């Protein structure tokens, strides 16, 4: 697959449905692989997408993951209907988690999701309204070298 224009799509996410945990991000990963993007770019995009996807499943009711890829960047926007985050600064701290005990027993709820997104994405924006929901925007830039290599 060749990337000349914008490639975009979306996945729907259902809160509490752990059996689908990672399904959207795995599909996104295989789409990015078909574009032959560099492995580290794919890794950073899928790690941050997965953490955002899991947050909807763990903490919210329902949501969507939108992705769009141009030769310049991968953009992922995950929006949910859910409880929202009262204190974003606190939520961003590594180790902070409100996940229930049974979720922690599954190995989730280490409070590393939001920090992981911030570390892996070049642009990380989060917006949340208590009682309504949360939106996370992630952008990963594609290196210029790759673009010029691909267009040869």
């Amino acid at each position, binding site marked *: 697959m060749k990337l000349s224009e914008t490639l975009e799509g979306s996945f729907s996410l259902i809160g509490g449905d752990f059996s689908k945990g*990672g399904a959207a991000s*795995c599909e996104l990963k295989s789409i990015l692989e078909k574009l032959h993007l560099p492995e580290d770019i794919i890794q950073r995009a899928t790690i941050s997408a997965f953490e955002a996807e899991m947050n909807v499943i763990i903490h919210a009711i329902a949501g969507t993951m939108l992705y769009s890829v141009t030769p310049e960047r991968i953009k992922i926007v995950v929006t949910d209907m859910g409880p929202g985050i009262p204190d974003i600064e606190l939520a961003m701290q590594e180790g902070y988690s409100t996940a229930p005990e049974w979720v922690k027993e599954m190995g989730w709820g280490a409070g590393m999701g939001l920090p*992981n997104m911030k570390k892996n994405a070049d642009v990380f924006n989060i917006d949340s309204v208590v009682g309504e929901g949360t939106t996370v925007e992630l952008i990963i830039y594609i290196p210029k070298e790759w673009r010029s290599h691909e267009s040869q």
Partner: protein
Amino acid sequence: MNLSKIISSLNLELLTEKYQDRDIKSAYVSDLLSDVMANAKPGEVWITLQVHLNIVAVATLKNIPAIIITNNKKPDEETIKKASSEGIAIFKTNLTTFEAAGRLYKLLTE
């Protein structure tokens, strides 16, 4: 070291249909999934006590070819099925995580 050599040295029991024999250089040990997402490296073997379906997604996303489940824990049938379809090998062992990691570390560094 080849995965097949690791399997025989640690006496691992294969739970998925098959595995791809490949060169393994390192492993990552953790039961926290976000920690694995953050710190495991592609190509590493993952040693864990977690047995539910989400471990397959984590391994798929991180390009982890094999998961070793310790302490004689057995993953759900669903987990094994999903791993088989994703081409990820799952092994089980009655070694504790400490023993499995220790033995593997010795194998890979000697």
